[in-house]
């Protein structure tokens, strides 16, 4: 019940009208970012991060996390109206959302999407409220070996959960670690991998990578199909909303399943995207109307949206308690924490309860406000989407360039953004996942110093990673996740072999 009293204290921080204003601005900006191609949650937050350096950390995180919620809501709008997923996690929403819009039921689809997003987020926030203090107090006892083991688990989960080929997931992740190592070695101060190039002294900033990979890369990808896209018009009025709400309780099982899948995938950084696909797949299998999925089933919108939002929200749980972000956007927020001078991890709950609980309280309020905002402003954002892409695209590129420059006031960073953009384009086309790269870039230094400290403690023996039950079981789980692709393909082969033998 300590959590409840802390939460109430958190809400009192929200009482500050300035924070409510930042919240509203954040939500509106977030929906805009989620709706526009080339500006997603991760790079939208990355671009706006430098603007918050002068704010108090609590106000800044409230605004930035609200941008994140807004982007999660906004992704559904483009998926349903334009059949273009604004965010990767809303790809599964297009399967049934766009057919619904084609049938003239866009309003219903949007209401269902927003409401189930809200449900997923709320479910996850309640989880965060009660689990976060527990995990944080457990994590207080963690030494470097345990911390590294948790990070190992995070990275191995990527390999196990990712829809991309494991060899490519590992390559992309290790590239992130290598990029993180560029510059001064944090322990000894020696220069690494700068090859005499003075500008590389400060290393690669992950914000630059995020803006390039997700921003410019996405624009190049969008441009492949030319400039035209046509959308369905959206009419949302209170009657449609109420009618849809009356239909939704039927889907409680799907929504609950989606929320649980989402929470699980968000905490182990599988991320919102695989969560949404998994939830859609499960709903299709278990629903009575599973055969009709893909032709415009409301349930097919509910399933991915609850999961995506639950995953997106619960991704903040490991970020706050262990300093390990569960998604690229959470990684950017974590980077923000470091810039504001806060050390993410369990100590945050003791040193800065105002920050932690202000953030958690804002997650409740932010999602309520978000739901109201999106339900009332859909026509506005649908109108923005009708602005020709040949106006929007150059403006987004200019904003990306400015965002890149403001990170460290370095012109060279804008060039790096361009290079990362090309890389993002090629990697996306070849199914290299980008999230592990970004996470490795953010966590690289931290993971490395934990690993080195653990090694120092054990005098260079790897046995420290199974020296006690806790660290051993985390490492064991990590190995299980790492080899899961091999195990599961082995199992499938075994099973098909058996069924053939039976025939």
């Amino acid at each position, binding site marked *: 019940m300590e959590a409840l009293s802390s939460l109430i204290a958190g809400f009192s921080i929200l009482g500050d009208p300035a924070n409510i204003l930042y919240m509203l601005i954040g939500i509106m900006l977030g929906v805009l970012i989620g709706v526009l191609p080339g500006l997603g949650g991760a790079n939208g937050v990355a671009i706006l991060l*430098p*603007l918050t350096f*002068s704010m108090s950390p609590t106000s800044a995180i409230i605004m930035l996390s609200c941008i994140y919620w807004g982007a999660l809501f906004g992704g559904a709008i483009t998926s349903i109206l334009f059949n273009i997923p604004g965010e990767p996690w809303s790809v599964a929403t297009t399967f049934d959302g766009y057919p619904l819009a084609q049938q003239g039921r866009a309003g219903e689809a949007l209401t269902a999407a927003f409401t189930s997003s809200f449900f997923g987020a709320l479910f996850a926030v309640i989880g965060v409220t009660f689990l976060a203090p527990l995990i944080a107090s457990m994590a207080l006892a963690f030494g470097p070996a345990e911390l590294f083991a948790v990070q190992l688990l995070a990275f191995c989960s990527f390999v196990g959960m990712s829809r991309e*080929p494991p*060899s*490519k997931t*590992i*390559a992309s992740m*290790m*590239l992130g*670690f*290598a990029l993180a*190592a560029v510059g001064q*070695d944090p*322990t*000894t101060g*020696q220069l*690494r*991998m700068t*090859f005499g190039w003075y500008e590389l002294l400060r290393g690669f900033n992950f914000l630059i990578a995020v803006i390039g990979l997700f921003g*410019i890369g996405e624009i*190049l990808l969008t*441009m*492949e*199909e*030319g*400039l035209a896209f046509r959308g369905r018009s959206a009419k949302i009025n209170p009657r449609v909303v109420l009618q849809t709400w009356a239909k939704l309780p039927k889907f409680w099982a799907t929504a609950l399943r989606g929320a649980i899948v989402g929470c699980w995938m968000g905490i182990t950084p599988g991320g919102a995207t695989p969560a949404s696909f998994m939830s859609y797949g499960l709903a299709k299998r278990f629903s009575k109307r599973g055969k009709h999925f893909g032709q415009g089933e409301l349930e097919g919108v509910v399933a991915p949206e609850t999961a995506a939002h639950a995953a997106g929200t619960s991704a903040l749980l490991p970020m706050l308690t262990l300093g390990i972000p569960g998604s690229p956007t959470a990684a950017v927020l974590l980077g923000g924490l470091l810039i504001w001078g806060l050390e993410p991890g369990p100590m945050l709950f003791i040193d800065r309860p105002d920050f932690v609980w202000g953030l958690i309280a804002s997650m409740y309020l932010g999602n309520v406000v978000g739901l109201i905002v999106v339900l009332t402003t859909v026509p506005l954002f649908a109108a923005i989407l009708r602005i*020709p892409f*040949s*106006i929007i*695209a*150059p*403006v987004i*590129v*200019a*904003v990306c*360039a*400015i965002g890149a*420059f*403001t990170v460290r*006031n370095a*012109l060279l960073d*804008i*060039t790096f*953004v*361009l290079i990362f*953009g*090309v890389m993002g*384009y*090629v*990697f996306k*086309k*070849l199914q*290299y996942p980008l999230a592990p790269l970004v996470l490795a870039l953010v966590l690289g230094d931290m993971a*490395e110093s934990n*690993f*080195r400290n653990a*090694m*120092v403690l054990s005098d*260079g023996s790897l046995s420290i990673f199974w020296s006690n039950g806790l660290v051993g079981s985390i490492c064991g789980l990590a190995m299980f996740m790492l080899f899961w692709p091999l195990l599961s393909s082995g199992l499938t082969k075994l099973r098909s072999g058996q069924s053939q033998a039976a025939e």
Partner: protein
Amino acid sequence: MRHEDEAGDSFASNRSVNIVVALVLIAVGGLVIVDSLRLGIGWAPDGPRPGYFPFYTGLLIVLSSLCTIILTLMGRMGSNEPFVRREQFHNVMKVFVPMAIYVGLIGLIGIYVASALYIAVFMHWLGRFRWHLTILVSLAVPFALFVIFELWFLLPLPKGPVEDLLGY
């Protein structure tokens, strides 16, 4: 390139680009390994040397990319489909080339003038907008950015001779 003659609308198959990218990654991994070896991958009196950790990341880049190449050659990964169709490539280049020029210009004439030019070129050339709308948008957007970043958030952005003339 054989594929190009057959289909006439693509540059390379998905599979060959897959191998090329894996080879590039192997080269990058090799660089990481070389520099780690220079820094020392062993043990110093006070703990692991700086190359200790990066060495393994480099090694894993090389190994996983080798895996990708082997799987691709075995036909288990990638497809014969074109990596990018010709018209898609043209579309991408139409955006990328002005973007690269824009990035180059920022250092020379400042971000505001470069943005105005870039937006104008993009709108007129690719969007085929009329001049008055093009000029309106390409002036209004940099001005709005100036107000937001320079005046409101007090973040100085790269400026050039035009801003000097105007007294900024």
